[in-house]
């Protein structure tokens, strides 16, 4: 039997200069009988109206007698990472958990490495929103932004059982000279309960471009695993893209790009498509995606931004949990969407793409560099990973994951080298 119900007075530890009380053993049957007896004996006496108060006093005295030691809470473990503490009140948690798909916002307190913020928190994510380990988006006070952002994402990256992909993926895009969100692994606590290893990820919005000295133009989010680059089969861009730019719900420039791709012969593409698309940027995005196996980034997790100063679309990667794994229909040196297919049908673009791939394979993104990055991430995340209730449930250590991904990369890079011939 558990202690709270069965400890007898003889077992009650002596007072040790403690500061608080617990009601400990008053629930035990012996005391319960006594309480009832006390109420009964007060019946029909002048003290009868006070019997409730006497009962409370009796409970309070018993509580004090059965003092257990009340201690200061221990500091929360950071597992070698920045610590993020999120506090949400019970009724706000009720609102959050009863409106998962509506993504209702509730007030919350956020403490990141000792700095406190009053924020509004909501669940975020697409397919992962109803998973046990949920991602959050925070809205900060205008006067108190976080890393120059009004909003920030705390992602669970539930699609990645290795916890290595997000940092490695964004690192790879940055190595290629492309814009990519800043990412930082953290240890997250919700109301002092460890939720696990999470990633603070910079959202791609107006603040993102302002930080990079660009202004917000047309911005499209690829969603629903249905971002396509052809109107064939009656495709509607609203099925796979959300417009988040200066003109919300405007799709005109994106539709123009798709018309050009559909109606222009491959040899005529230069001079037409590059008026609207930064082709060099896309070929580099494609090359990195092929090397790190970003198969989700062909039709789902990416953003297209039309910088008003440049007047052309550029690609920005998003959500790197589904990388470094084989996906047979999309495991291809040419990528797997209509845009890559159309561009690589042009000999000049194909040659340029081949040159970029070679540059990455040999200089910017070698397999040794990629694998070293994995080792660094594994080392950094190891303790938070081991304590994470979800990640650790597989029984596979992060170092075992790293070894198998590194072996996969060796084979994949060798395969790409062989396939380069096909691009001539």
């Amino acid at each position, binding site marked *: 039997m*558990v*202690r*709270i119900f069965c400890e007898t007075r003889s077992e009650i530890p002596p007072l040790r200069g403690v500061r*608080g*009380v*617990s*009601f*400990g053993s*008053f*629930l035990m049957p012996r005391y319960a009988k006594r309480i009832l007896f006390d109420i009964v004996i007060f019946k029909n006496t002048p003290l009868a*109206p*006070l019997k*409730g*108060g006497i*009962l*409370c006093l009796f*409970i*309070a005295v018993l*509580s004090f007698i059965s003092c*257990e*030691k*009340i*201690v*200061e*809470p221990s500091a929360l473990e950071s597992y070698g990472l920045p610590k993020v503490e999120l506090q949400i009140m*019970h*009724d706000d*948690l*009720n*609102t959050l*958990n*009863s*409106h*998962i*798909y*509506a993504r209702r916002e509730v*007030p919350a307190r956020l403490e990141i490495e000792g700095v406190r913020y009053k924020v*509004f928190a909501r669940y975020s994510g697409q397919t*992962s929103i*109803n*998973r*046990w380990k949920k991602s959050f988006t925070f809205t900060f006070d205008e006067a108190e932004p976080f890393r120059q952002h009004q909003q920030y994402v705390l992602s669970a990256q539930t699609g990645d059982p290795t916890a290595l992909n997000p940092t490695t993926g964004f690192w790879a895009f940055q190595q290629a000279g492309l814009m990519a969100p800043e990412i930082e692994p953290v240890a997250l606590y919700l*109301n*002092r309960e460890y939720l696990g290893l999470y990633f603070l990820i910079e959202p791609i919005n107006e603040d993102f471009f302002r930080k990079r000295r660009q202004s917000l133009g047309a911005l499209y989010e690829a969603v629903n695993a249905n971002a396509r680059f052809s109107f064939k089969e009656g495709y509607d861009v609203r099925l796979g893209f959300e417009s988040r730019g200066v003109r919300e719900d405007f799709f005109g420039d994106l539709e123009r790009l798709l018309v050009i791709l559909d109606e222009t012969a491959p040899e005529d593409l230069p001079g037409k498509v590059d008026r609207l698309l930064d082709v060099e940027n896309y070929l580099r995005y494609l090359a990195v995606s092929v090397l790190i196996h970003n198969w989700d980034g062909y039709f789902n997790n990416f953003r297209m931004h039309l910088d008003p100063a440049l007047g052309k679309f550029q690609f920005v990667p998003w959500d790197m949990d589904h990388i470094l794994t084989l996906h047979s229909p999309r495991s291809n040196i040419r990528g797997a969407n209509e845009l890559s297919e159309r561009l690589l049908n042009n000999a000049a673009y194909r040659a340029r793409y081949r040159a970029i791939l070679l540059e990455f394979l040999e200089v910017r993104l070698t397999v040794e560099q990629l694998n070293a990055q994995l080792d660094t991430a594994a080392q950094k995340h190891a303790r938070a990973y081991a304590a994470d*209730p*979800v990640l650790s*449930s597989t029984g596979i250590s992060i170092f075992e994951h790293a070894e198998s991904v590194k072996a996969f990369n060796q084979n994949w890079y060798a395969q790409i080298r062989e396939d380069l011939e096909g691009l001539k």
Partner: protein
Amino acid sequence: MNLRILGLRFASAMSVALLFGSATTLFSQKKPELSGWIRMGMLKVHEEHEGESFYAAKLQFEVKLDKTLEAQIDLRAASTRHEIELREAYLKADVGKGLNLDFGQHKKRFGFEYQKSKENLRTVERTLVYRYLETFGFAGREMNFRYYRTTKERERPSGYSISLGYSEAHDLNVIGRWQRLRALGSFTLALNGLAQRDKMDNGAQMVWGLGLDLARDTEAHHLELEAFAGQDPFQSEFERDFGAGRKVYFTGGKFLYSHRFVISAATGKVFEPVFVTSFLAKDLDQYEVNTIELLPGVNYWFSPYARLSLNADFVLTNSPGNTNERTSVGSNYVLQMEVRW
């Protein structure tokens, strides 16, 4: 003419008919009744260095559409939020003999405290077990349809309520409550049951909750005794997806006593000390890991519509690694003035 066009025309005709029908009723209805409260005060969370002031308001509109139909809207605003929240919006139909139907967004009535609005509680906030039940939606608010019979002294000693609810998280539930006045001496006894189909990432699970409450309410004093047990949907889902697949059950209980010392019957001045103790074990397999709540408090009623409350809510929790010592994380002290109308 295809079915879609026919359907659209039918819907348009129905809308016009409803609009005119409603307008006739609306022009003949009484003025809305307004009720609500304002609250202001100070909150100090134990582990925080500084306390915080707060203010909040509730505005409730009750519109009698006709003799038997009523619409209720509950709006809330608080210093912690940017916006006014539509907390409840529902229709209430009186079908006679104490029988009623409610439909819309309103309370999920599991347990004694959720039969009442916050302003009718003896404490400033709901107590420990309810705060836990709220986090996974056994209590709170949702869209539901409720059929119930109210109790009345001497005429209807027994009452019941059954509701079918659906939350935006795609959870479906049935909540039942039966209560009897003077079932045990002067105590009102009530039994609560909840069954919920809980939507998960890859499927669904059935979870349940049971509650028993005893309450005694007289001029001088008020007493509540409650006991709960049930299956925790969050932890059970975790165990199913990442653990050994076991179901996680919780149990809890509450004792609340308050005594009213009348200072002036003419003005309604009353001094009311309150004492609450609660117990919560979130996992019956680890029963020794639990939380105890001790809440001494007082309400000073300036009139039946205004009270000053002071609650010291001690929340004492031990941990799996150390069941002998408890921390007071989550304990808080509230001083609050509430005026209702």
